[in-house]
Each structure stands twice: as structure tokens, then as C-alpha cells.
């Protein structure tokens, strides 16, 4: 292969990787980036930096958090990931070359990158691993630039503790390269004693460092030996991290053993094989159903109510997490009573889910509580979600919401605490500084379109909240302020989801206090259902029901009562009615 073709080919493949990675994260997986961004609070603050640097792997973690904050704009996140993956591939190739691997095996340098990409597609995989790999690759390449054997050894000895502290246990990859290069050299020169001694010494040195660290730091030894921050759950260490490490160590050595061939077709086959495998492997690491849920959640954060509904219209969500977002969007746009049962519903869990001790599921529910005006409950769900973040990090999203709930509740000093922290961030600084101007200014808060309204909507009397009597909680909220139509819609939706017709009929008249220009469709469906259970004709029916609803219930009842195997047909024809939820699900 001539030189220019080789160069173009290599550049082309690397460029293709960069572009593909950018397109993937920006177009197909952006909600994962936003998901990551919300579960950290990167502060431009000396104490914060010191806190990170005072533990092994802290530097990589700090850089990773610094970069992750840019995920606030997914295109920036995609750019960063594209850059990182590309840089890793290039550095990986630079290192592979040092072992004498032939240029035709350039595609092999993509293999660790695809495995890392697969890993990063996991929503709990932290970027610190990618940063750590980059650091160790730089250190590895520098090692091979040193020609003097003694200097190399001194460099390696010094590098091991530094790398352990900066990048964590990925240092073992560095030790792997150094030891293998020494052993290969020993094999070549047939001098074994000194290289073997050096190799064992380096391995022992690598093991000793975490052991010494364990003496000074309060971390379980196993975590210091495995890695602290590569995964969001500290107790979990996915096997794929071992695989990445092994690949990084073995690919340079193994590929150096491969023979030279000169057939272009062979290289093309190699490229195609690596690309096909890479595509499938990355794809197998992706979870697009989670991506969908995260997208719903993100749209709730951004108050993109109509976009949420549009997305659900094209594919109805089924997880309680997403359904909670959809129902909130329907409520916020005043469509809950008319459209809720057009979409899949999973009971009250898709409306106001019970608290689960994790860091994700309470957040959409806390959003619903917030917009309803149940400020204390929204605060509790938010606070508890943040407390449940497994790696003990704080959350920008939660801080923002906690500042708001405390501001609404008049707890200005607590709100200030959150706002002062947010004012040390890059993307929340302006908001925090503007919000600080609201603290203590009752007039300004009351005039704010959202906070002012929520102050009017929230409970103003204290009682113990009971999530086992959620309908009563919603009823009290609505009775406190009849302008709170969302509370009324949630109240009726809640009992409808419970299929509690008696309660619906008890609460329904409260709607007279709201400014409905028509009876929402699903309420009509329930009302006519109740009517037909007790009456033989429409005469005397007190509600204004659409004629087509009356006609439909008659048809539905006829088919339901006469055809024993009409369930599927009814589901198809009346799948978007409350009758479907009530009688067919």
C-alpha cells in the first residue's frame, strides 16, 4: 500500500469514528448525556478541587466532571465524547506502533474504543474511565519515547504512584505495557534475570501503592484495588472494565506478532470486520427504551409539554417513569381529562408514583408534586432522590429545585445555600444569581409567574401528608384553591386510575368551581357509564354529554354484553376510551 493511500485510509477511518461518535451521542443518545449532567454538581471552587484531588483517581474524576457539565448542551457533550474516543484511538495506535505492529493493523486500535463506547452507553458508566484511559495512554506513549533503559525504569517507577493518584487503577494497564515490553526485550536479548526482577518489582510496586493508600484513606481496600469512581455504584465494578484494560494491554503485544500482508482486499476485510463488530457491539450496549424515558424526563425539566405529547402520539410510552411525564404534560396543557386514556396507563404509579428509594424514579413524580403545589412533598422527593445518588454526588437539577421549593416556602437562608453553590457552576450561575435577587422579596416572588402561583396553590395549613390517601391530599389541595385546576384533574385522574367510581362521583361536582367550557371526554365516558348502569334512557341525565359519546357507549355495551370474544375488537375500537381502561384492561 503506498504511503498516501495508507495515510488517507487511516485519517479517513479516524474521521469516520469521530463523526459517527458525534452523530450517535448528539442524535441518538442525547438524553443519556443530560441524564449524566443532572447527577453531578461541578463547582469552580478550590475546596471542591481539593476534595477531588485528595483521593486516588480524583484528577480523572475532576476532569470528567468538568467535561460532563458541558452535557448541559448535548451537542457539546457529543463533541467531547467524540474527541475523547478519537484521542484514545489515536493514542492507542501510537502505542500499538511502539510494539512494532504493522500499519495494516490500524483498525485493531479501534477495538478498545468500541468496547469503551459500549461501556459509556450504560447510564451509570462514568466518564472518568475514559479520562483515566487517556491519561494512561499519554503516560504509556511517553514511556516508549524514552530510549535510555535506566531512565525508562525510573520514569515507570515514578509514574506508577502518580498515575494511580491521578487516574486510579487503570495504572495496571501502564504496568502491563511496561512489563510486557521489558519481557519482550528480554526474550529478544535472551537476558532474563534482571528483566524478570524489574517486572516483578514493578508489579509489586503497583500493588503496594493501593495498600499504602488504604492505610491512610478511609476506603475499603477492595475499592482502592479496583477503582473508586469508574462506575456510579461504588460497590459495582463491571467486568467490561477488566476487558477494556486487558484489550489495552494485549492488543499492542498480540498485534505485533501478526504477519505482513499486502493485499488491499485483506485490509478492507479487516476494516469491515472491525466496523461490523464495533457497530453490533456498541448497539448491544445501548438501551433505547431508557433513552426514551430519559428524554421524557428531560422534556419535563425543560417544560416542553407539547413536545412530550407529540412524542407520545408517535409512540405511546409504557414505563411508569415516562407515563408520569406524559400525564404531567397532559395536565399542564389542560388535556388530562380529555386525552389521558388515549395513551397507555399503568395505574396511579404513572400518575403520582409511590416513593422508591432510588435516585431516578422520584424525580418525575417530584415534578408533578411541584407543579401541583405540593411543595413540601416535591421537596422531599427531590431531596431523597439526591440523597440516593449512589456515588454520593450532589445534583444540579435537585439543587435548583430545592432552591425553588425553599424560596416558595420562604426558607430564604436554605435557598441561599443552594443558590450560592449553583452560582459556582457554569450553566446555572446566571439563574442562581438572578434567583438570589428574589430572596426575601415577597412582592417579587409573588409576582413571579410560577413561584407566585405555586405560593397560592400550596397548602397553607400544616398536616401530616399521607400518600396512602392521595385522593384526600389532592382534594384538600384543590379545596384550598379552586383555581388549581391541575389538582382537580389529578384528583379525578387518580380515582379513575384506581377504578374507584364512587369516589369519582363524589369528587366530580367539585369541578363546578373550575372554568371548564365542556365536560372533559374521559369524565363524560365515566358519567355515561354510570348513567347506563342505573337508567334505561338518557332522559333526565344532568350532564352535557357529546352525542358521539352516548352513541359509543351504547355500541360498546351492546358488543360487550352480546359477544363473548369481542375483547380484542373492543380494544381496537375503543382503546382510547376510559371504558377500555375500566373494563378491558
Amino acid at each position, binding site marked *: 500500500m503506498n504511503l498516501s493511500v495508507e495515510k488517507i485510509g487511516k485519517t479517513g477511518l479516524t474521521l469516520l469514528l469521530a463523526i459517527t461518535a458525534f452523530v450517535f451521542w448528539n442524535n441518538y443518545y442525547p438524553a443519556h448525556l443530560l441524564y449524566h449532567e443532572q447527577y453531578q454538581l461541578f463547582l469552580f471552587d478550590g475546596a471542591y478541587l481539593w476534595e477531588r484531588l485528595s483521593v486516588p483517581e480524583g484528577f480523572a474524576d475532576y476532569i470528567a466532571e468538568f467535561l460532563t457539565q458541558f452535557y448541559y448542551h448535548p451537542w457539546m457533550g457529543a463533541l467531547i465524547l467524540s474527541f475523547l474516543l478519537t484521542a484514545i484511538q489515536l493514542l492507542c495506535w501510537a502505542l500499538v506502533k511502539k510494539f512494532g505492529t504493522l500499519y495494516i493493523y490500524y483498525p485493531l486500535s479501534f477495538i478498545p474504543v468500541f468496547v469503551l463506547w459500549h461501556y459509556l452507553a450504560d447510564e451509570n458508566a462514568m466518564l472518568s474511565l475514559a479520562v483515566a484511559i487517556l491519561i494512561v495512554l499519554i503516560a504509556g506513549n511517553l514511556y516508549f519515547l524514552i530510549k535510555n533503559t535506566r531512565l525508562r525504569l525510573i520514569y515507570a517507577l515514578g509514574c506508577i504512584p502518580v498515575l494511580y493518584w491521578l487516574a486510579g487503577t487503570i495504572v495496571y494497564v501502564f504496568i502491563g505495557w511496561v512489563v510486557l515490553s521489558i519481557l519482550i526485550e528480554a526474550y529478544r536479548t535472551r537476558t532474563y534475570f534482571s528483566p524478570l526482577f524489574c517486572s516483578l518489582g514493578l508489579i509489586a510496586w503497583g500493588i503496594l501503592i493501593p495498600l499504602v493508600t488504604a492505610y491512610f484513606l478511609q476506603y475499603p481496600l477492595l475499592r482502592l484495588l479496583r477503582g473508586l469512581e469508574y462506575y456510579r455504584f461504588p460497590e459495582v465494578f463491571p467486568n467490561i472494565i477488566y476487558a477494556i484494560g486487558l484489550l489495552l494491554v494485549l492488543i499492542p503485544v498480540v498485534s505485533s506478532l501478526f504477519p505482513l500482508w499486502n493485499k488491499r482486499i485483506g485490509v478492507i476485510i479487516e476494516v469491515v470486520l472491525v466496523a461490523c463488530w464495533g457497530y453490533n457491539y456498541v448497539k448491544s450496549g445501548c438501551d433505547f427504551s431508557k433513552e426514551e424515558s430519559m428524554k421524557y424526563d428531560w422534556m419535563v425539566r425543560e417544560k416542553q409539554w407539547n413536545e412530550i405529547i407529540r412524542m407520545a402520539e408517535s409512540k405511546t410510552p409504557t414505563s411508569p417513569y415516562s407515563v408520569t411525564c406524559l400525564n404531567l404534560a397532559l395536565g399542564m396543557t389542560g388535556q388530562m381529562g380529555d386525552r389521558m386514556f388515549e395513551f397507555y396507563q399503568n395505574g396511579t404509579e404513572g400518575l403520582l408514583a409511590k416513593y422508591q428509594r432510588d435516585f431516578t424514579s422520584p424525580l418525575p413524580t417530584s415534578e408533578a408534586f411541584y407543579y401541583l403545589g405540593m411543595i413540601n412533598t416535591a421537596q422531599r422527593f427531590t431531596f431523597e432522590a439526591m440523597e440516593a445518588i449512589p456515588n454520593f454526588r450532589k445534583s444540579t437539577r435537585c439543587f435548583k429545585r430545592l432552591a425553588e421549593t425553599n424560596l416558595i416556602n420562604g426558607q430564604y437562608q436554605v435557598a441561599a445555600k443552594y443558590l450560592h453553590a449553583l452560582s459556582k457552576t457554569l450553566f446555572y450561575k446566571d439563574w442562581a444569581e438572578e434567583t438570589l435577587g428574589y430572596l426575601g422579596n415577597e412582592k417579587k416572588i409573588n409576582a413571579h409567574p410560577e413561584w407566585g402561583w405555586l405560593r397560592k396553590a400550596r397548602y397553607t395549613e400544616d398536616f*401530616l*401528608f399521607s400518600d396512602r390517601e392521595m385522593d384526600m391530599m389532592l382534594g384538600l389541595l384543590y379545596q384550598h384553591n379552586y383555581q388549581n385546576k391541575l389538582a382537580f384533574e389529578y384528583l379525578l385522574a387518580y380515582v379513575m386510575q384506581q377504578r374507584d367510581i364512587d369516589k369519582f362521583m363524589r369528587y366530580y361536582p367539585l369541578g363546578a368551581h373550575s372554568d371548564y367550557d365542556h365536560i372533559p371526554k374521559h369524565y363524560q365516558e365515566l358519567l355515561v357509564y354510570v348513567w347506563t348502569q342505573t337508567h334505561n334512557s338518557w332522559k333526565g341525565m344532568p350532564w352535557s354529554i357529546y352525542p358521539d359519546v352516548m352513541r359509543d357507549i351504547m355500541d360498546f355495551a351492546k358488543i360487550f354484553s352480546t359477544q363473548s370474544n369481542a375483547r380484542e375488537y373492543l380494544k381496537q375500537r375503543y382503546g382510547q376510551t376510559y371504558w377500555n381502561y375500566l373494563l378491558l384492561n
Partner: protein
Amino acid sequence: MKFLSIILSIVSMLVGCMSCTPSPENVLQADEPLLIYPDYKDVSIPVNIAPMNFLLRNEGVEALYVIVRAEKDSLEYKTRGNKVKFPMAKWKKLLESARGETLTVEVIARQRKGWKRFSNFNWQVMPDSIDPYITYRLIEPGYEVWNALQLVERNITNFEERVIADNKLCEERCMNCHIHGNNSGDLSLFHLRGKNGGTILNRNGELRLLDLKNNRMVSAAVYGDIHPGGRYGVFSSNIIIPSFHSYGNRRLEVFDTVSDLAIADFDKNEMLISPLTSDSTVLETFPTFSADGKYVYYCAAPNLPVPDSIREVRYSICRIGFDSRKGEWGSKVDTLWNAEEKQASVCLLKASPDGKYLLYTVADYGTFPIWHRETDLQMMDLETGRIDTLKMVNSNRSETYHSWSSNSRWFVFASKRGDGQYGRVYVAYIDKNGEVFKPFVIPQSDPENDDLNLKSYNIPDISATPVPFDAKKIQRFYRQHMPEQFK
């Protein structure tokens, strides 16, 4: 770590030296009041306290000149910015020379329009020392979920802080707060919850893991105290139900559906139970021994249906005898403070080591004062029965979780007076006549710490000596031991 800290300190010192600190010139009298955090104006401080560092919160402060004057000595401090951080050695020397004197603190600050002199304030240096060590639990003031929990021992004569237990090292188990017996680091305990958990008892450095429960108790030991003799501990066993407030800053209400008392005999591994303190119609909780160990003080309330009647549940202060030689409960219960008469509820009783006073928390109702804004400390003179409402000590936020210094001249307590959410540790002086002085928050090396720290200081407990264990030792001990059973 220490080495790294030294290097960083040297670097910051060098950087500090390079930027010269301005001196006051053309000083004018300030026409605004001095705003400092913490509120250290006119407080009484122990002679052995750490430097009382503070922040100046007046707007636009660029540089500071502070001089603390005693009769024969003085301490000058100049800095850029608004943080006053006195050097340790000079501070110690000043306090030692000013024992029993009043220090005058003069603050001159450079603002945009030049140097201003603010009104002076005073520090009364009390000759009585305070016990140096305070243990507390650092926890986010949340609801039900806990995350990182640490039991920490702080030396308040300097800024050293030591983690003595860390849930990260103990399978992320919940840890309850650490209490001392006899204000000694050689006698203490804390609960480690969860599977194979129990109460970790430290007696002279010997650790034991105890399952303080028998089949007559409704739960393992919860709130408690250690007998001055060290052989016994008195505990409540409670079925605790949390509930959440819908409005305002009262987050959490916790109430008991059942609660009784039991005394643990640590030598015989036996729980001693009396029908008088395990009455199913009465909720008994928060027991503590008298200074001489001859009585158990505790809180008691009629067992009403909760949560419906939670606002009617009010705890009185009761007392029952205890014979430590025989290991027997007394046969008579006295009510020292009647909740129905007072229309209030008491919890967390602590007798002063000199046996003179009983310090306790009073709320409108219930048994969980942290989120009750109205919660205040009160003190009963056990000889005369006189009650001091401690107006000088209390604020409009919760004050609770108090602990006496061994000389009975100081007590520490947790208060949410700062921002209403994050508890901080305050210290108050009580003279030999029982007069109590304005409290102050324990000083921090960086006075901004209280602003930035997102943890509450939970149940501060004070001791004359440090505990002889650390988090690593607790980790090893917990891993290697199964709880000892009690009958």
C-alpha cells in the same frame, strides 16, 4: 495526606506573601453595624477554645485589620478578603494570658470608600475550660434516606477532626449517634444498624458488639445513656413511625407507637425490665441516668392513637430509682414535670455531672424536636425544682441534642438557628450561680465552612478525652464480630 497539606499550605503562604496585605490608613467610623458570621459578638468563651474565626458580611469588604486586646497582650490580624483566621499559637497565648478577662475586638475593614472602623465587641474569657472533644454524626438533614454517614470527633481546642466511624467502611449501614459515659473517651457507645449490627460498646478501648434486645423488648436499644459506673446502660426500645409535614419547614414528624425502657447489664449480658417503665398504656423514652447513677430520668406520655392524636401526645419528665449494686429498678415513679399542666412535651434529658441540673428540650408536642421550630432548651434545678427557660440560649429555631462538659460549667447543643435546616454545634457557659450566657457556634478553621457544608451536626456529645478507636478499627471489628446476645 498531611504531607500534601503541608506542601499546599507552604504554597498558599508563598502566594499570600507575594501579594502584600494592606494596612489601614485614614480610618473613618463606619455608619453601618458590624455584620459578622458566626455571631460572636459579646460571648463568653472557654480559655481553651480554638481561634474564634469569623467572616465579615458587610458589603464590599476588600481587606481587614482586626485587633484583639487583652489587658497585657493583644493579637493583630491583617488579611485581604473578609475572613478572619487567627493564628493558632498567638491565639492560645493570648487566651492563656487573658484568663478571666474581657477581650475587646476591634474590626477595621477596607470597603470601596476606604477604611472603616466598626463598633467594638467583647469576648469574656472564662477561666473554666471546656472538655475538648465533641463527637457528632455528620448527616444530610433529610427524611428517610441516608447516604454518607460519619461519626466524627472534633477537638474544639483546635480544628482537628477525626472520623471515628464511617458507614462507607461498614457496608453502608445506618449509624446512630455516639454517646460518652462520664465524659470519657474510654466509655462510649453507638448503634450500627442492619443485619449483624448492634451496639458497639467501648470500655477502655475494648470494643464489643452487643445485640441489646431480648424477647420482651419491642426493638433493639434506641435512645440511651451509660451508667457512671460503666456496667449498665439504660435504653428505650421504640417502634418508630415517620411521617411528613405538608407545609412550612417542618419536614419530618417521627412518633412512637410503642416504647418502653430497659437497662442493659453489660457484664451479665442481660436486659433488666421493670413493669413500671414498660407499661403498654404509656410511652416511655429518652432515659438518662442521674449524675450519681441512683436514678433514671425519662420521658413518658400516654399512648394515644397516632398520627391522628399526634398533637395531643405530650411527654412528662419522670424519675425512677436504680440500684446499681443489685441491678434493680426502683419501685416508685415520680413525675417532675407534668406535660398536661405545661401543655408542652419534653424530650432528651441530660443531667449535669455535678448533679445539680437537668437540661432538656421542650416542644409543643411529640417526641421528635429537630424539625419543631418552637423547640427550646430548658433547665431544671434538681434541688429546688426551679425551671430556667434559658432565654439567653434559645432562638426561634430548634435547639436540642445537648451535652454537658465534665465540670458542669459548659454545655453544647445543636441548633438550627443559622438557616433553619442545617444543625450546628453551639456552646454555652453556665456560671456557679446557674446563670447562663449567650452561646456561640463552635469555631471552624474556615469560617465559611458553615455556609458551604451541607451536613447537619447531629447529637453533639462532649468528652474530656478522645475515644481510643477510629473508623478503620471499627471496620475491622465489625467485619470480625457477631453481636453478643442478651437475655
